[in-house]
């Protein structure tokens, strides 16, 4: 549950900034890609994060900067959350082992 609250809060932060510029969209997209690349190192890219990243790329191609920023921020937020989850799991998984 707590995760969802965090996720929703992050998603809210990612609410579209009005009249974003191309530069802002590209910065947001780069940050999202970086977060997803980090998550990939843990074999833990989230399906909706990838979907948002694709949507952001499409929006950039269509020069829809507001949408691009919003989707990229969403992807980045989820990417970071996935990395956080994986780091936590690096030790937490031991807890679940049948002994």
């Amino acid at each position, binding site marked *: 549950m707590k995760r969802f609250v965090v996720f929703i809060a992050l998603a809210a932060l990612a609410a579209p900034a009005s009249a974003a510029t191309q530069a802002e969209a590209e910065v947001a997209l780069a940050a999202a890609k970086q977060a997803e690349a980090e998550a990939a190192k843990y074999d833990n890219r989230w399906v909706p994060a990838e979907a948002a990243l694709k949507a952001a790329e499409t929006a950039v191609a269509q020069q829809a900067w507001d949408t691009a920023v919003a989707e990229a921020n969403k992807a980045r937020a989820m990417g970071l959350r*996935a990395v956080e989850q*994986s780091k936590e799991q*690096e*030790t937490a998984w031991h807890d679940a082992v049948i*002994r």
Partner: protein
Amino acid sequence: MSHRRTVRWLVVLAVCLFGGAASPPDSSTPAADQKAFQDYFRSRFPGVPFADFANGPYAVDAAMRKQWEEIMQFPPYDFALDEGKTAFAVKFANGKSYADCFANGGIGVRQNYPYFDTKTGDVVTLDLAINRCREANGEKPLKYGTGMMASLTAYMAETSRGKSFDIKIPDDPRAREAYEAGKQFFYTRRGQLNFSCASCHVTAAGQRMRGDILAPAIGILAAFPIYRSDWGSMGTIDRRFTTCSAQMRSVPLPPQDVAYRNLEYFLSYMGNGVPISGPGTRP
């Protein structure tokens, strides 16, 4: 549960002692893991004969079992099985065949897969062995997951029915590493839904997830490849792993990714003693 709390404290202690390294080695051995794993499912499902874990959800749910028995009167994998049998006998362009690549001509060997190859230093699944065989003989590899790969593994499984999983972990640090990696993958939560393999197939095993009964992890690979009504077609272990990942909202890894192979290695080793029942049918 005080036992659980004790375990947790031990883990915390271990993490402190080992400085919380990326994946601190578990002090237990594969053999001890296996015993604990099997004991867990035996006591969790006391009415289920051990060999019956080869039948996944049908081992633990009587109403589903009845429908399965009806399906098994004429199982829909029959076409794939025949296709696999025929294809298995076909010679490659160089005159050799699959039989030349496997012990005992490939008949009755499913239970020994995956194995750790000390020459290549990696886990070799049956599917990978089939493609390595093809490539060694100048043939193109088959697509993983479904189609002909499912048909061939169906035939090879069928010739191995009743033979118990007999996975070995050779005395090679790389084999042990592969095992540990597979174990970690099994218990690690990932994806947006924050599930691990164990969340469904240990903790919630035998319970309903939406309309389906979750299969116990023990022996869960014995029935593969399977015809799933949900797919309306055959699927291999790769197909199941990738769909499991996607269901956890985690982007699936490529079929036969080293992480999936290690997972299969761990999971099959946990199921040592469960007889091969594949090919199978599942909802």
